[in-house]
Structure formats: structure tokens, C-alpha cells
């Protein structure tokens, strides 16, 4: 179609007006930081109802089209994808925008497991964190997270890893010494601490001695330790077994201050053994 000269300017004005009508988002920011003040300026004239809505927050304002409308700090604070609708009687405009989390972390959700574990366990301690801003919005952009596991003796393990979509996890080794360890997660200036109790592992070996005690035999172990030299906790069961003439007697004895002791009937030629869990100790042949 060829435009005649008098119609050309009107046509281009019409195109411009049409383009303006197709761009109602102009004057509305595409992204707003959670909790920050912002202003919008929508074309048109007269008053209109503005609806801002998303699953995490809604707002309604009466605004003046063609002029700036100011939203003070704290108006929109929940991160999410929002729609807006301007209802101005016969005409309406709509659009969409994001409220993004505040970039500064304010809170860590720190899950550390387990709270108690044996010493010297590779990858035995795991920690997972989620990073939130002050409005409990998940901070999606990568943040540098630092984990530190420190023991009472001053040993430290540290790892630094970036968060991925607001989360990160790490596995760390329990140390060789029993005791209370501190497990720290840190992002920005925010940190969260968990206490991990490291307990001795399984007995490394058991050695017992026997001596006569009247008509009985007294059995006593050496201090029972794990393979790192830590005393195995009191209450751990040690089983003594006496076999003589086809009969077998057993006694389960809890460790007390690192030792287990008991008296059993003295039978000449009896074989006495000791064990705890899967660990088998020495064997004695009783001849008295």
C-alpha cells in the first residue's frame, strides 16, 4: 500500500501509539530488590486501580496514570515473579516483573548430621545449608560458603564451596580423638554452629588375664581401647565364654572405667575366651 503524503505523518503517529500500547511495562522496573523502595510511571491519564499479584504477595493501589507512583521501602519484600494489572475503566494494561532476594545473606539453615559418631570415620559428618536474606527469601545467586570442623585439641578442617541455587552440602571426616567438635558454616558475615560429639570406635583388640579366686576364676581385661587409643565407652558389652566338657557358660559384662571383670566357676581344662561385638580377644586354657 502506498501512502499519500497527507496521510503519512498520521500513519506513523498511529504506529507509534500502537507500539506504546504494546509496551505497557515501560515505566515499571523489570526487577526490584526485596524490601527496597521503587517507583513506577505508567502512561495514560486519570486514576486507575493497580493490582500487583503473585503467590507470595499482593498489593492494590489507586494510582495516577501519566505520573510517578512511589512505593516506600518494605512494600514488596517476598521474592517471586509478579504480575500487574492496571484497571483504568475501559482500558487496562498488564505486565510482569520480579522481586529478587536481597543480595546480603541474613540467615543460614544449617543441617548437620550426625550429632554423635565414631572417631576416624571418612566422610562421616555431613552439613547442608540453605542461604536466606532478611525476608526469608532463598538467595539463588552463588555465594561462597565456608565450613570448619574444629576439635578440642585445636585440629581444624576447612572447606570452601560455592552455593548452587541457594544450597550446598559438604562431607567431612571425624578426627582421631574423641570429644566435642564444633562444626561451623559461614556465608558472608553470617555463621551457624553445630556441636558434633565424637565417640571412640569399636574395640581394636581385647586382652584378658585370669587368676584363681577360691573355687572360682577371676577374669579381668586390660583397658579396652579403639584403634586410635581412645577408651571404649563404659557400658559397651564384653562377653566372656567358658567351655568345659561340652558345656558352655557365657557372661555379658558392661565396661566400667575401661575394664570388664567377672568371676566364673573354676573348671580344670576349661577354655575361656573374650569378645566384644565382632572383635575377638585372647583365649586362656584354665588348668587349676
Amino acid at each position, binding site marked *: 500500500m502506498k501512502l499519500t503524503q497527507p496521510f503519512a505523518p498520521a500513519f506513523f503517529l498511529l504506529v507509534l501509539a500502537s507500539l506504546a500500547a504494546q509496551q505497557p511495562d515501560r515505566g515499571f522496573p523489570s526487577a526490584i530488590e526485596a524490601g527496597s523502595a521503587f517507583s513506577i510511571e505508567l502512561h495514560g491519564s486519570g486514576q486507575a486501580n493497580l493490582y500487583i499479584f503473585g*503467590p507470595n504477595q499482593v498489593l492494590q493501589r489507586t494510582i495516577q496514570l501519566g505520573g510517578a507512583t512511589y512505593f516506600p521501602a518494605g512494600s514488596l519484600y517476598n521474592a517471586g515473579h509478579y504480575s500487574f494489572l492496571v484497571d483504568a475503566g475501559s482500558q487496562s494494561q498488564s505486565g510482569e516483573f520480579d522481586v529478587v532476594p536481597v543480595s546480603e545473606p541474613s540467615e543460614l539453615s544449617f543441617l548437620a548430621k550426625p550429632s554423635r559418631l565414631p572417631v576416624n570415620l571418612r566422610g562421616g559428618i555431613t552439613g547442608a545449608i540453605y542461604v536466606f536474606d532478611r525476608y526469608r527469601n532463598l538467595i539463588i545467586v552463588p555465594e561462597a560458603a565456608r565450613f570448619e570442623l574444629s576439635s578440642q585439641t585445636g585440629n581444624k578442617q576447612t572447606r570452601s564451596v560455592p552455593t548452587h541455587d541457594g544450597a550446598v552440602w559438604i562431607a567431612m571426616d571425624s578426627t582421631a580423638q574423641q570429644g566435642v567438635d564444633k562444626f561451623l558454616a559461614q556465608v558472608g558475615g553470617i555463621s551457624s554452629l553445630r556441636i558434633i560429639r565424637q565417640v571412640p570406635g569399636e574395640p581394636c583388640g581385647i586382652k584378658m588375664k585370669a587368676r584363681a579366686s577360691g573355687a572360682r576364676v577371676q577374669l579381668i581385661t586390660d583397658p579396652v581401647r579403639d584403634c586410635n587409643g581412645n577408651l571404649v565407652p563404659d557400658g559397651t558389652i564384653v562377653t566372656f565364654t567358658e567351655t568345659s566338657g561340652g558345656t558352655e557358660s557365657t557372661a555379658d559384662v558392661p565396661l566400667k572405667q575401661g575394664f570388664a571383670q567377672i568371676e566364673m566357676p573354676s573348671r580344670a581344662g576349661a577354655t575361656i575366651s573374650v569378645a566384644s561385638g565382632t572383635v575377638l580377644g585372647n583365649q586362656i586354657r584354665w588348668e587349676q
Partner: protein
Amino acid sequence: MRQAFFLLCAVFATELHPVQAQPAIRVEPPDPAYTGTLQSQTADAVIRNYLHAWDSLRAAFAQNRTTSLDQDFVGTAKEKLAATIRQQAALGFGTEYHDRAHNIKIVFASPEGLSVELEDDVDYEVQLLGSNKPTSKLNRKARYFVVLTPTETRWRVRVFQAEHD
């Protein structure tokens, strides 16, 4: 006669609550670097419960009924969604969300099994209900970041947050 009555009721009920088209679902395999040894049964349960949460959300927002969130949301997500529903009820309107397509990927699973995070590129419609005049449905695409945690019988949504896709 009685059967005819029930048939009529069923037809009427269908008219009042037309069946929504089921959304198209696509699930991408998780990245083992971030999800470790997440079992496939666990992943299936997480996604099933998450999709059910969208049904609950739709009902809650269309009817301004916060109790519809109870089964599928917990913690921060539930508090924020419930607050929004109370806000829109106070302002005299509702919102209808209709999810048309999901493209879901599990992006994080904490090793102790206490949380799973997924990303979901969602195509959905949203419509303002109960304002002065009928409004058209707005087509939207957004990427949702969702954290779910296990409860007694199901996974519940604890974080529900979106950005433009």
C-alpha cells in the same frame, strides 16, 4: 428416577467446576554432583507431592481458603502463601492459577535426606477474580525454586519462590 437425579447432579457439578486440563509434565534427570545418591523412588515421591501442591495452591488462591495449603505446604512457604491469601481476601479479590506445563529438575538433595530442592520452569495462566470487571487470563513463564522437606507421610513444600524464566 434416583439415577437420573444423580446424573443431573453430576452434569451440574461438572458445569460448576469444569475439569481443568492436566498440565504437561517433563522431568529431567538430576545432576549426581548435587543430588548424590538420591533414590529414584524418593525423587518420584518428591515430584508427585510437589505437583499435588500446585493443585492445593490453585484451590486455596481461587477460594481464598488458607486451609487448602495445610497438606502440601509447611514453614516459610505456607506462611507466605497464607499471608497472600489473607491479603487478597481483605482487598476483595482472588487469583486463579492454572499450571499448563512443568519442566522439573531436582537440583539439590541434602545427604542426610532432610531436604530436596527442585527447579521448575512453569507455564501457567493467572487471572484476577472478583475485581470490578472480568480480567483476561495472563500467560506467564516462570522458574520456580522449590525446597521440600519430609514430614510424617509426604514431602511438603518449605520454600516456593520464582523468577522470570
